[in-house]
């Protein structure tokens, strides 16, 4: 039963005259990137287990426009935004949860000015709420006592001041949360933001993700936790570059929780 994911779409629910409590915005990485798809599924498993009333847009979802906007293409961004807002508004969406801090930032901060105002939460905030509402229980299990360091995604941390929800969840796993020397407000970027993910870096002495991975490895972690599919890719590449992939895993918080619940 555990492989059977229940992922209703907005269109299906709408046809049945139903309205979910929350829209799960999957995002491009979460939909197409092989590594990120695992995060998406882990999150859905948790939602299913907690009986959360949610839906996705499926084929009606389109890129939020974040990489276009950060590249300077305001036209393309606004075209994307207006299209997405039209879809969401037509379904009467009130609340959005997403596992991508870039989608989170864009929908939360930049869509309202274009006619799309929703309550937007990051999946770590959402999971923390499930825990507080008693809809989900969490025991460390396999993560008990493990050294986990958490990498702050720029678009969740500095950009939107969400530092505590992901940390709270890691602590709830009974894991030993170890902080990097640059964390929270001073967290170093993984190198993917501002559309860097999609281009070669400029000439320099090293890649940003390598530098950040070094900082993470300095804490001697067993797991590097992230809350962003792009950070995940960058840190995974960094760990591979340092040939540490057999000792250190890069995991999303949702994956940690799903694993801890044996989902």
């Amino acid at each position, binding site marked *: 039963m555990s*492989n059977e994911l229940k*992922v209703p779409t907005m269109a299906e629910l709408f046809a049945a005259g139903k309205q979910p409590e929350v829209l799960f915005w*999957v995002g*491009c990485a*979460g*939909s*197409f990137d092989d590594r990120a*798809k695992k995060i*998406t599924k882990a999150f859905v498993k948790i939602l299913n287990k907690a009986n959360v009333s949610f839906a996705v847009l*499926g*084929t009606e*979802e*389109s*890129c939020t*426009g974040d*990489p*276009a906007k*950060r*590249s*300077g*293409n*305001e*036209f*393309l961004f*606004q*075209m*994307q935004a*207006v299209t997405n807002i039209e879809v969401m508004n037509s379904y009467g969406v009130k609340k959005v949860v997403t596992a991508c801090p870039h989608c989170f*930032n864009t929908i*939360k*901060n*930049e869509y309202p*000015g*274009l006619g799309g105002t929703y309550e937007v939460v990051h999946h770590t905030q959402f999971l923390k709420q499930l825990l507080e509402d008693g809809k989900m229980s969490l025991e460390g299990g396999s993560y008990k006592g493990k050294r986990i360091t958490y990498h702050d995604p*720029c678009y969740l941390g*500095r*950009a*939107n001041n969400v530092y505590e929800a992901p940390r709270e969840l890691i602590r709830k796993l009974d894991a030993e949360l170890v902080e990097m020397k640059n964390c929270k*407000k*001073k967290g*170093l*970027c993984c*190198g993917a*933001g*501002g*559309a860097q*993910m*999609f*281009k*070669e*870096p*400029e*000439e*320099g*002495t*090293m*890649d*940003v993700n390598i*530098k*950040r991975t070094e900082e993470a490895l300095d804490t001697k972690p067993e797991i590097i936790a992230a809350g962003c599919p792009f950070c995940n890719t960058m840190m995974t590449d960094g760990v591979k570059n340092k040939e540490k992939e057999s000792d250190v895993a890069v995991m999303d918080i949702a994956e940690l929780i799903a694993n801890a619940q044996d989902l």
Partner: protein
Amino acid sequence: MNYIPNILFLIILVLSIGFFAANVKKLFRNINLGKDVDVSDNKSQRWKNMAKIALGQTKMVVRPIAGFLHIIVYVGFVIINIEVVEIIIDGLFGTHRVFAPLGAAYNFLIGSFEILAALVIIAIVIFWIRRNIVRIQRFIKSEMKGWPKTDANLILYFEVILMTLFLVMNAADNQLQQLGADHYVKAGAFPVSSFLLPLLDGMSISSLIIVERVAWWLHIIGILCFLNYLYYSKHLHILLAFPNTYYGKLKPKGELDNLEAVTNEVKLMMDPDADPYAAPAEDAPEPEKFGASDVSDLNWVQLLNAYTCTECGRCTSECPANQTGKKLSPRKIMMDTRDRLEEVGKNIDANKGSFVADGKQLLGDYITNEELWACTSCNACVEACPISIDPLSIIMDMRRYLVMEESAAPSDLNNMMGNIENNGAPWPFNQMDRLNWKNES
């Protein structure tokens, strides 16, 4: 009575204040070359930010050593400058230590000024050592060569000289008081300058008066010179940090403004009733330029940012691009903007009030594409700036120009944008496959 010193003082005072005022006017004019931006919202939050960040120096102490030393110099200067009020009154009216009748309070004031002056000197010596001997990384980056380096040291020399003159003046005054010289009322407490007394031992009253007068005059002239130096220096932050923190960004750091001109066009494009072939109305304003290629395309808060930047390099030292050897330095973005703005301002001065094209612009002549494309938009620079400067907003506006006016994005980004346009994702996947993950194991 001899009025020559009073008149001389008045002339010097008027000239230096006049010169300063003229530069302030220029400053306003240059900042106003920027586009309008509405920052009239949330007044109470803005005042709070100014009180916390500029007055309270809350972001300086994120780096405790530099922050602590800076607070000493800052508090020292603000408080010691109360003394300037007395100096000006004395200078204009030929009085001497006009506030002396305050008695114990006066002694307390002068005593604390002296202690602060000594602390300021110590702090500045440490600052100088950090810059020139320890050579802390952020002070020796490539954009700090030449004038910026000289400027930073000049400020330190200026401050030490002013503080020393103040203490020498007090020491001579103290000695004169003890010798019972005419005109030198017994007033003040001299906890620091009394250590200088042995140096003045055995000097006659007339030589002491010369020492006291020379120190007094050099001190006030020095202060006036320093005032006028501000406009040419990064030290302008001592004034502009206040308005700059007031006008600083209040929205979440991740929020980038939506360009209104684009919104209008997008609306038109999406409006099924709009006639795509309609000729633009006769009196339609010239289509707005998207993004920024020169200083006049930036808004005035961004230009205020540029004049406020104190070149401390906290932004650059936190910048992931800079840390990994890329050319980008957010501090340089601010310095370039100010330099170009000054160049434009001088051009306007030289051409009787209007700008004559000089074949240069901020983009290319100052800031290169390579710098702009290295930014990860991580906001580390914005977070690090102790006086609420936003280098990222300038970088983004210039990227907008590169992409929307010049189609000059790196080819990888053009591919990415092509994908978004065609299939709604930055990679070449079909939008119809967006939910396939659901059934993949």
